[in-house]
C-alpha cells in the first residue's frame, strides 16, 4: 500500500504539471524567461521537477563518495600490520574532518572563485561558504543542483584527495605532523589545482579534459604521497642489507635487485579487510564518476557507469596477468590495486571514451600499476599500500589516455595539464612536509615503530585480547 500511495502521489504531480501545461498553453504563449519566475507555468513546474531529480542524484553521489572513506580505511588497514591499525583508522577518520572543514573555510572558494576569475591561475572568493548574491536554486548551475549540494559533493572530493596520502606514509609517520601537513595541502594546493580546470581557470580555457579527477584528485593526492614517501624513508626492515641475508642461505630465492639491499616484503595483516575496502571504493566510485556528470542526465550517467565498471573489471586482469607471470602465483593485493588502477585510469575520461576504450584504459592501468609497484621497490621508495602506483601513475595515465581515446581531445593539452599539476603539487608537498619535518619531525622513533604506532601514538590496541606476532 505504501508504494502505491507514493506512486499515486508522483502520478498526481506529473498530471498536475501536464494539466497546467495544457490549460496554460491554451490561454497564452509561454515565454521561457517569465516561466522560470512564475511557478504556475508548465516550464517552471518541469524545471522544479528537473532540479528535484538532479539534486537528489548529486546528493546520493556525495554520499557514495563519502562511503569511499570507509573503503580507504579498510584497504589501508588490511594492507598494513595489525600493530598499526588504530593509527591508520585514526588518520582516516581525522582526514574526513580536515578535508570538509578546510573546504568550508577556504577550499571551496579557492576552487570555485567565481566567473570573474575565468581563465586565471588563481582565484579566491572569500572565506567561508555562502550562496552567491541573488541565489536561486532553479537557475544556479542551470537548475542541476543547489549551492549546498555543489559544496558537499566537492567537499567529499577534497577529503578523498587528502586521504590518499595516509596509506603511503603508513606505519611510520607521526600523527600530529601528518594532520598538519594534510590540512595545509588540502586547504591550499588541492583547490588551487582544481580551480585551473573545474573552477574555470586556464586549463579549462585550453580545452583540458579531466572528467572526475584522474589528475585533479588522484594525481594531486599521489604527488603528496610521493613527497611523503621520499621525505620519510622506508619502514624499518623493508630494505635490508645484502650481507645480513647471506649467512642464512635459505634466502637464496630472494632476488638481489640493487646489489646492496634486498626487498623484504612486509605483509598486510588482513586480506578480507583489504578486499572489503576495494569493493567499497568501487561502489563509491559510481558516485565519484556518476556524480561528476553534475546532473542526472540519463544517457550520460548510464554511459559513465558502464565505462567505470568495465575499466575496473579490465584493471583486475591488467594487474593479475603480469603479477601471475612475474611472481608465478597471482597476488591478491596486487589484483586489488589493479581494480583501483582501472578506476583511477578511467576517471578522467569516463564520459567521453567508448566502452571498448575504457576496457583498454583499465587494462593498461592495471599493468602500469604492477610495473610501478616493482619499480618503486627497485628505487627503494616504500609505499605500503601502493597509493603512488594507483593514484599518481594511473591518474597520469588516465588523463593522457583521454587525449588518445577521446575523438576531439588533444594529447598535448592533456600532457600540459598533467605536467602543470605535477609542477605545482610535488614542490608544494615537498616544501610543506619538509617544513614540518625541519620543525617538529615527521617520523616516529625506532622503538615506537617497532612496537607499533597503536601503542606509541594512541596507547590503544586495535585488537585487544588477540595475540599476534609483533616481531616484524
Amino acid at each position, binding site marked *: 500500500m505504501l508504494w502505491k500511495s507514493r506512486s499515486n502521489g508522483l502520478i498526481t504531480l506529473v498530471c498536475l504539471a501536464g494539466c497546467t501545461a495544457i490549460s496554460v498553453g491554451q490561454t497564452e504563449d509561454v515565454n521561457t524567461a517569465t516561466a522560470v519566475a512564475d511557478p504556475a507555468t508548465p516550464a517552471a513546474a518541469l524545471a522544479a521537477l528537473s532540479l528535484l531529480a538532479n539534486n537528489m542524484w548529486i546528493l546520493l553521489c556525495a554520499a557514495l563518495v563519502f562511503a569511499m572513506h570507509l573503503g580507504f580505511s579498510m584497504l589501508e588497514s588490511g594492507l598494513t600490520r595489525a600493530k598499526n591499525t588504530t593509527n591508520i583508522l585514526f588518520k582516516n577518520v581525522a582526514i574526513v574532518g580536515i578535508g570538509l572543514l578546510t573546504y568550508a573555510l577556504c577550499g571551496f572558494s579557492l576552487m570555485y572563485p567565481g566567473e570573474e576569475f575565468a581563465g586565471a591561475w588563481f582565484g579566491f572568493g572569500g572565506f567561508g561558504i555562502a550562496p552567491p548574491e541573488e541565489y536561486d536554486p532553479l537557475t544556479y548551475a542551470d537548475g542541476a543542483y543547489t549551492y549546498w549540494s555543489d559544496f558537499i559533493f566537492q567537499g567529499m572530493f577534497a577529503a578523498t584527495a587528502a586521504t590518499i596520502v595516509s596509506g603511503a606514509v603508513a606505519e611510520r609517520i607521526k600523527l600530529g605532523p601528518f594532520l598538519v601537513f594534510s590540512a595545509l595541502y588540502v586547504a591550499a594546493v588541492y583547490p588551487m589545482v582544481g580551480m585551473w580546470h573545474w573552477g574555470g581557470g586556464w586549463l579549462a580555457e585550453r580545452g583540458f579534459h579531466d572528467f572526475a579527477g584522474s589528475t585533479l584528485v588522484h594525481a594531486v593526492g599521489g604527488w603528496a604521497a610521493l613527497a611523503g614517501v621520499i621525505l620519510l624513508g622506508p619502514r624499518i626492515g623493508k630494505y635490508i642489507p645484502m650481507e645480513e*641475508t647471506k649467512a642464512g642461505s635459505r634466502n637464496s630465492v630472494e632476488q638481489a635487485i640493487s646489489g646492496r639491499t634486498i626487498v623484504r616484503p612486509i605483509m598486510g595483516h588482513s586480506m578480507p579487510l583489504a578486499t572489503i575496502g576495494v569493493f567499497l571504493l568501487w561502489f563509491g566510485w559510481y558516485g565519484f564518476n556518476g556524480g561528476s556528470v553534475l546532473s542526472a542526465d540519463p544517457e550520460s550517467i548510464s554511459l559513465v557507469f558502464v565505462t567505470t565498471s568495465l575499466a575496473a573489471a579490465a584493471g583486475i586482469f591488467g594487474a593479475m596477468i603480469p603479477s601471475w607471470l612475474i611472481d608465478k602465483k597471482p597476488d591478491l593485493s596486487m589484483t586489488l590495486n589493479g581494480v583501483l588502477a582501472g578506476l583511477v585510469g578511467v576517471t578522467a575520461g569516463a564520459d567521453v571514451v567508448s566502452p571498448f576504450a575504457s576496457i583498454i584504459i583499465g587494462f593498461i592501468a592495471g599493468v602500469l600499476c604492477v610495473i610501478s609497484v616493482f619499480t618503486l621497490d627497485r628505487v627503494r621508495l616504500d609505499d605500503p599500500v601502493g597509493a603512488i602506483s594507483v593514484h599518481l601513475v594511473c591518474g597520469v595515465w588516465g588523463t593522457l589516455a583521454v587525449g588518445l581515446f577521446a575523438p576531439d581531445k588533444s594529447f598535448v593539452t592533456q600532457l600540459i595539464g598533467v605536467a602543470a599539476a605535477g609542477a605545482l603539487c610535488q614542490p608544494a608537498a615537498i616544501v610543506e612536509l619538509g617544513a614540518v619535518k625541519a620543525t617538529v619531525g615527521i617520523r616516529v622513533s625506532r622503538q615506537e615503530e617497532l612496537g607499533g604506532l597503536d601503542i606509541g601514538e594512541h*596507547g590503544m590496541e586495535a585488537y585487544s585480547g588477540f595475540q599476534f606476532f609483533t*616481531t616484524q
Partner: protein
Amino acid sequence: MKLIIAYFKPEVFTDVKRALLRADITKMSVTNALGCGAERGYHETYRGADIEIDMLKKVRMEVAVNDEYLQPAIDAIMEHAQTDGPDHSGDHGDGKIFVVPLEDCIRVRTGLRGKEAIG
C-alpha cells in the same frame, strides 16, 4: 647438549634471528608470550579510562644446541636483545636467557639420536 629458552622483546626478534644465522645456528622455535618482570609495564587509555598493562608482550625462543654452539648463541641473543637503556647498558624488560641440560634429541624424519640430530 643444551636447550636455550630465551625471552625477549618482540621487536628485536628479527635482529636476533639474523645474528643466530650468522653464527650458523639455523634451527629455532618461536612463540608469543606474555610476561612481567622488573619493568613496571605501561599505560593504555581506553575511552578516557587508564589501563595498566603489566603483562607485556615477549617472544619465547627455544634453541637446542651442541655445547660448542652455546656461547655463540648466547652472544648473538645478547647482542641484539640488550637495548640501549638510560646508561647504554640495557633496560628493564630486555628479557632472560635460560640454559637447561638436554638429555636427548631425536630427529623424527630419520630416528637419528643425540648430537648429530641437533645440527
